[in-house]
């Protein structure tokens, strides 16, 4: 990992450059854009996956046995799908000529479409052209693949909580909102904690989905840390030092989150 403080100059030995690469990265205003993209994206994705996953977990817990098993296996299918092919399919769904979404928007009554979006013909519409739309679709892809894990984990947590508590609360007249925040959430706090940390780690280093959706490393405005590091290092001219410095910064952020995770796991071992 010392590579980050060296630089490649032809075939000669790499001179030691101290913290120059870090100074260069941190001084670059583009780095701040990338960092902002990463933090905003990760936050949005963690929040959305947690909300959707928790709702689905709660729902699964209230279903009949067969229905629950069926829906759980459907949901796990999305989780098991490789990031690569999962992203390729979403790219096809958003294809600008024959994609399903383009067709759906074309089917909208022209008047309505015109009034809301100021266009009625969606064929050829570049779904991935504006950074905001790109990030929305990337969020859809990542949440689609990450909510199942949250749902199944929450379900597993709920199964281990005695049902009498919920019943008692309901008998006492508490609504579903109150039951969740007063009973379910406190009981499952450790599960939620671990899920948030794990999702944060995963969403901070998203690479495959972005690489595939953007079709490579050309779309600089939508860069996040992982792909930024990769592009700096491997698109000509290669700047391994800069790329490695960004990678180290990403690692430091993740280590911080991981430290939190380890502490949480250790705490639970103590109490268990």
């Amino acid at each position, binding site marked *: 990992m010392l590579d980050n403080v060296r630089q490649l100059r032809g075939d000669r030995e790499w001179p030691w450059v101290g913290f120059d690469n870090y100074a260069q990265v941190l001084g670059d205003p583009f780095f701040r854009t990338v960092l902002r993209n990463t933090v905003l994206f990760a936050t949005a994705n963690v929040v959305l996956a947690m909300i959707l996953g928790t709702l*689905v977990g709660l729902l699964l817990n209230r279903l009949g046995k067969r229905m629950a098993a069926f829906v759980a296996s459907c949901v796990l299918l999305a989780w*098991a799908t490789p990031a690569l092919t999962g992203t390729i*399919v979403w*790219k096809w769904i958003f*294809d600008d000529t*024959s994609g399903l979404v383009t067709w759906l928007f074309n089917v909208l009554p022209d008047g309505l479409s015109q009034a809301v979006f100021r266009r009625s013909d969606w064929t050829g519409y570049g779904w991935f052209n504006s950074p905001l739309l790109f990030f929305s679709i990337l969020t859809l892809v990542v949440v689609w693949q990450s909510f199942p894990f949250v749902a199944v*984990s929450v379900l597993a947590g709920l199964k281990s909580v005695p049902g009498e508590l919920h019943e008692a609360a309901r008998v006492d007249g508490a609504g579903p909102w109150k039951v969740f925040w007063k009973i379910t959430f406190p009981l499952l706090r450790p599960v939620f904690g671990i899920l948030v940390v794990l999702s944060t780690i995963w969403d901070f280093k998203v690479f495959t989905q972005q690489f595939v959706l953007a079709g490579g490393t050309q779309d600089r405005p939508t860069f996040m840390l992982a792909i930024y590091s990769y592009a700096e290092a491997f698109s000509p001219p290669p700047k391994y030092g800069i790329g490695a410095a960004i990678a*180290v910064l990403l690692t430091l952020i993740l280590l911080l989150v991981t430290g939190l995770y*380890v502490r949480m796991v250790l705490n639970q071992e103590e109490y268990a």
Partner: protein
Amino acid sequence: MKRFARNCAALLVALFAVFPVYWMVATSLKPSSEIFASTPRPVPAEPTLEHYRELLAGNLIPGVTFADFLLNSLLVTGATVVLSGLVALLAATAVARFRFPLRTSFLIMLLVVQMVPLEALVIPLFLMIQRLGLYNTLPSLILTYLAFSLPFAIWMLRGFVAAVPKELEEAAAIDGASRAQTFRRILFPLVAPGLVATSIFSFITAWNELIFALTFINDQSRYTLPVAMTFFFGRDDTAWGAVMAASTLFTLPVLLFFLLVQRRMVAGLVAGAVKG
């Protein structure tokens, strides 16, 4: 009524989760005329295997066929799975059965290295692979994937080995079995299910990996499937039928293996999170 609403919501969730996978398979089975029709059909009207035939017969990238990439992927993944199973089994036995200096440090290290984001290791490993003279070879990938899958595999197998009662091995030893015999006849059959589970994890890791394969391999004929696919559909006029056929073939083995391990995966990741 409430029950009905819940079931409807559940079906919607299931639809959202499954639809893209379904759409992938459905598209791969449609003739091109249906794929590019102005009104998409939810179910292929005239299902055909033409895209699969086209994919397996034709060239994905000039001069290289899908079968070549499949072979590369199978080679890399297969070697990773076999080697990682072998090394992990021996290492797990050592860690679970013998006392040796730095044993605890070794165990902690296994956990710590799993925390390092692999995405951050591409650059240093790339330079290392270059210096080892392994750049642009499949062994570079095998070596890398082996290093990534081992810590988890050893950690997981250790649990399986530790769960086998020592008395069984002691009884075998008293009956005159050698150490190797005890290992082969007693320990191995009992740990085999764990070995299957860890192998599946190694398989999925190696099979899905993109970023290192993208970086370490330059020669198109040596691409693994994931790399080939990112190039394949990057062309201007995307042949979605063939892309979806390739995606389906790539996804199927993962889904099959995944079904076998999903329970353990979920249980392991939230282990100890709830007090019984």
